[in-house]
C-alpha cells in the first residue's frame, strides 16, 4: 500500500526535507562561495543578522507588507464579492475581469507597473496625474512609498483570486438566514455583520493564511520593480536572502536568513490561526 506513496515520498525527502535540514545545519557554519569547506561557528551568523540594521529592516518590511496585504486584499475582496453576489448585470464578465490579473506572472506584472509607475517622462501614471493637474509622484523612488507601490500592484493582481473564493462561500449561505435577520429588523450593515461575515469563516481563514504567507514570501514583484531600493527601502526577507546567498556568496549567512524566515512564517501563521480559531469558537 505504502509503495504507492513512495515516488512522492522519496522525491520529497531528497529534494525538500534534506535541503531544508541542510539549511538549518549550514546556518551555524561559515560556509561561503569563497570558503567551500565550512566549519562550525555557532550562532555567529544569527548575531550578525540581528545586529544588522538592514537585515532587520528587511524582516520588518516583509512583516509589514504581509499584514497590510492581508488586510487590504481581503477587505476589498469581501466587498467586491458581497456586491457581485447580488444579481448584477454582467456579473460573470466582471468576475472574469477581476480574476484575470491572477493568471499573469508576477514578474510580468512587476515589469508592466515599472513602466506605468516610473518617474521618467514616459511614465503613464504620472502623465495621468498631470493631466488632472496633480503633481507627479515618485512611486518607486520615494523610500516611504516604494514598498507600498509594489504592494498596490499585488493587491491589483490577487484580489480577484480571493474574491472568487468568497463568492463561492457566499453562494453556500442559506438564503433563509438573511430572511430571518431581516424579519428581526436588521439593516443591511447588521445583516452583513451578524450573518454574512461569520458564515464567511471558511473562505476568510483560507484567504487570510494564503495572503499572509504569500506576502511574507514576496520576491518577484520587488525584484522586477525596485530591486529592494531605493537604498534598502523595499528589501524583503526573500530579496535579501537571495542577494546575500547568491550575489555576495555568503551561503551560511543566507541559510541563517532562511531559518529566520521559517521562524517568521511559522510564528505568524500560528498567531493568525490562533486568532481565527478564537473567531470560529466565538461564532459557533
Amino acid at each position, binding site marked *: 500500500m505504502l509503495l504507492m506513496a513512495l515516488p512522492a515520498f522519496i522525491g520529497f525527502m531528497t529534494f525538500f526535507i534534506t535541503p531544508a535540514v541542510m539549511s538549518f545545519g549550514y546556518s551555524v557554519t561559515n560556509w561561503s*562561495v*569563497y*570558503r*567551500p569547506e565550512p566549519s562550525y561557528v555557532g550562532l555567529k551568523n544569527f548575531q550578525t543578522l540581528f545586529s544588522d540594521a538592514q537585515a532587520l529592516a528587511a524582516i520588518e518590511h516583509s512583516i509589514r507588507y504581509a499584514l497590510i496585504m492581508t488586510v487590504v486584499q481581503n477587505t476589498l475582496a469581501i466587498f467586491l464579492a458581497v456586491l457581485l453576489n447580488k444579481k448584477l448585470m454582467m456579473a460573470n464578465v466582471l468576475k472574469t475581469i477581476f480574476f484575470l490579473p491572477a493568471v499573469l506572472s508576477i514578474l510580468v506584472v512587476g515589469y508592466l507597473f515599472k513602466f506605468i509607475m516610473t*518617474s521618467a517622462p514616459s511614465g503613464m501614471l504620472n502623465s495621468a496625474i498631470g493631466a488632472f493637474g496633480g503633481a507627479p509622484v515618485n512611486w518607486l*523612488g*520615494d*523610500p516611504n512609498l516604494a514598498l507600498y507601490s509594489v504592494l498596490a500592484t499585488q493587491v491589483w493582481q490577487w484580489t480577484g483570486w480571493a474574491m472568487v473564493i468568497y463568492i463561492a462561500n457566499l453562494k453556500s449561505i442559506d438564503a433563509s438566514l438573511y430572511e430571518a435577520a431581516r424579519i428581526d429588523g436588521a439593516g443591511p450593515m447588521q445583516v452583513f455583520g451578524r450573518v454574512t461575515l461569520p458564515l464567511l469563516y471558511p473562505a476568510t481563514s483560507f484567504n487570510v493564511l494564503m495572503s499572509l504567507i504569500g506576502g511574507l514570501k514576496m520576491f518577484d514583484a520587488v525584484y522586477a520593480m525596485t530591486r529592494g531600493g531605493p537604498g534598502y527601502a523595499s528589501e524583503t526577507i526573500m530579496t535579501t536572502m*537571495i542577494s546575500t546567498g547568491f550575489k555576495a556568496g555568503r551561503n551560511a549567512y543566507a541559510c541563517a536568513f532562511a531559518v529566520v524566515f521559517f521562524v517568521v512564517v511559522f510564528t505568524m501563521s500560528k498567531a493568525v490561526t490562533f486568532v481565527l480559531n478564537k473567531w470560529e469558537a466565538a461564532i459557533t
Partner: protein
Amino acid sequence: MKRKSFLALLLCVVLMLGAVPFSAAAEGEVVTLRFMAYNPAQSRATYLEFLADQLPGIEIVFEYVSLDDDFNGILNAQLEAGAGPDIIELGGETKLLAAAGRLLDLSDQEFVAKYAQAGLTPYTWEGKVFGTPLQSWYEGIFYNKAIFAEHGISVPKSLDAFIQVHKDLEAAGVKPQTMGASSWEPMMKQSIGVANNEFYSDPANAGFDALFNTSEVSLAESWLPAVTAWAKVIEEGCLTTDMLGMSYEQAQAEFASGGAAMWESGPWAESDLFAANPDLDLGMFPIPGVSEGPGWLVGGPGSSLVINAKSEKIEAALQVLALTATPEAQIALTADWPGSSFLIGVNLDLGDVYADCAEAFAAGNVYAPWVAVWDFGNPVVEAYGKSLQEVLSGTKTVAEALADADRMNAIMIDEIKN
C-alpha cells in the same frame, strides 16, 4: 504481480526523466566553450566574430547576464555547483574567486607577459595572475554638445562650475542631468570620481587602498571631505529624488532623445545612444574636482578574462586568451567599445566624442579603487551605492553611507579570512 506493475511504472517514470535530458551529443571536432559575460554581445560583436574566424575549431556560446540581473549571483551559484562557464568576463570578483580556488592560475602562460603590469594588478592574488585585462573602461559625464552650444555653455572644469552648468541649463528650461539612480551604481561612481580628484590625486594616499583591504583605514575618515564635496550636487538640486524612480536605461533613453543635457556613463553606451538617436552630438567630459583642473575619470582595467579552474576545456580556453593577447584582437575589441588597451605596444585612438577627456587621460587621471585594488570591491561599493540612494532621499548622511561601506568591508574580510 501488483508490485511488478508498480515497479514497471516507476521504471517508466525514471526512463522518461532520463530520456528528457536535452544534452546534445558532441559533434565533429568542434569544441564548444561557454563564455559568460556581464557586457552584452553587441559590445563585443567584432571581437567575437574575430574569434570565430581565427579559431574554427572552437565554438563560443556567449552568455550575457547583466550585473544588475545578478551576474555575480548566477556565476557564484554555478561555480559553487561545479557547473560554471569555461571562460568568464570578471571584474571586481576576480580576487575573491581566485582566493576560493575557483580560477585557473595563468601566471606561467606566455601571453600574460604581453600585458602592462597596471592591467594585471587587479587580477593578481597572492602573487599569481588569474586574469588578463579585456580592455580599459572609463566613465565620465556624457553631454549633448548641441544643447551646450545652443545655450553658450562650456565644459565645466570644477565642481562649482559643474553645479553652475546645472543652474544655467535649468534657467534656460533644459533638464540638466538625468540619472538612473534606481540603480545604485551611478551615484557611487560619480562620487568616487570626485574622490579621485580630491583624495587619490594626492601621492600621500597611494597606499590607502592596500591598507583598506585589511581594514586598517576607513572610508568614513579618509573619503569624507571628498564625498561631502560631491554631495553638494545633491544639496544644490542637481540630482533629485525623482531620479531614484528611474532606471539606468530610462535615463539613457531620456538623454539620447535630448530630454536632458548630461548623463553619466561610459563608452559601452555609445552604440545604444546612437541607435536611439543617430543625430546625437555626443561628447564626454571628466568628473571635475573642487579646484579647477583636468578632472578624473572613473575607470581602469575594465574586466578580465579568467578561466574556470574546473573547466573541462582548459586547452581551448587558453587558446582564446592567447589569441586575445594580440594587437588584432585588441583592435577588434575596441571596435565596439572605444577604450585603450593594456597590451604592450598597442596604442588606440579614442575618437572625437572623448576629446574633452584628452587632458585627463594624458595625466593618467583614470582610477577605480574598488576594481584596481580592493579585495571586496563589489560588495563594498554596492553597500556604499545603496546607502548613497538613502543620502539622496534624505534619510542618511554621507558619513553614514561611508560607514556602511566600511562595515561591509569588515564583514567580507571576516567572511574570507577568519
